[in-house]
């Protein structure tokens, strides 16, 4: 009985671990009606035909900081929506962007992570200085995208820690 319970637990853990390997990243993947910030940046850079980027925030926030080529939601007319193939709506965070985009367009997507993801993933990506060759190659692509939009990719020196934090280990 005990042996069977151990075998069942081992199988459960192994199954969960295998699913983790398949999932790959611990970050939630964009839903079917979402687009990642990096993908949207590539669409904008490539001037994807029929793309319309809509800012669903207040006008004050739009004036301070917005995505390139974005239009404030209240300024968009029905004709612009009808002529767009893909409408990407964004807000401050992912949940805010769920407030429903324009319904006339053929395809409406939310920006995964909102404008915060745009700033973090597109404008200001960070790479550890001790990253391996493959990580550096991957980062070069993102760094080029960042510079295209006027961002500043940076290298994090892991040794440059301002102050040693409290130790929180034990057993």
């Amino acid at each position, binding site marked *: 009985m005990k042996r069977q319970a151990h075998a069942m637990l081992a199988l459960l853990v192994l199954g969960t671990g295998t699913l983790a*390997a398949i999932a*790959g990243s611990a970050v939630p993947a964009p839903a079917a009606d979402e687009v990642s910030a990096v993908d949207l940046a590539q669409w904008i850079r490539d001037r994807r035909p029929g793309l319309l980027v809509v800012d669903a925030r207040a006008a004050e926030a739009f004036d301070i900081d917005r995505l390139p080529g974005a239009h404030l939601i209240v300024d968009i007319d029905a004709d612009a929506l009808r002529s767009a193939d893909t409408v990407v709506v964004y807000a401050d965070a992912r949940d805010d962007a769920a407030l429903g985009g324009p319904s006339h367009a053929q395809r409406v997507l939310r920006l995964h992570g909102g404008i915060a993801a745009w700033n973090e993933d597109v404008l200001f990506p960070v790479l550890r200085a001790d990253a391996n060759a493959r990580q550096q190659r991957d980062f070069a692509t993102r760094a080029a995208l960042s510079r295209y939009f006027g961002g500043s990719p940076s290298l994090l020196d892991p040794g440059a820690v301002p102050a040693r934090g409290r130790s*929180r280990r034990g*057993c």
Partner: protein
Amino acid sequence: MSAPLIGDGSLGASLVAAVAVGLGFGFALERAGLGSARKLIGQFYGRDLAVMKVMFSALTVAMLGVFWLSRFGLLDLRAVYVPLTYLWPQLFGGLLFGAGLVVAGLCPGTACVAAATGRIDGVFVLLGFLAGMVGAGLLLDRFAAFYESGAHGAWTLPELTGLPYGVVVAAVVVLAIAAFAGAEWFERRVR
């Protein structure tokens, strides 16, 4: 809503959570029999590998929990504290810790459990820890350069290996299951 539910600014709530988690941790250690130095020392003679099994089980459950909670958007991994890596002092500290564990038969958590359950050896080990902490604090300035050496910041296995987080999780799971099977086999042989 996603975890962590307690922000950095809420010291009171953090302390309440720390006490609750500490009580739970101590209870689990006691129920696993790890308040006994004899049980812990059995690890080094190959008679009883319960310590390794308990710790590896906790590690595996926590790792899978953190991964999947984050994956489902219930935990913000960026808000989770990752202890900073200082390679050389931590290697030295690990060796010293291991030596102390063999000599005393208890580590900090299990010493607290042993003392709380009335074991005299636990009380003396705790007194030793206190003396060691005060001594290390007094001598720290002399070893400041070594204390800060080999700094790598918050360094994780996915960053070190360049592998996806999920693949590292799966590798650790396989390692844990192999370790459990190996431990059972070894215990049967010794007995």
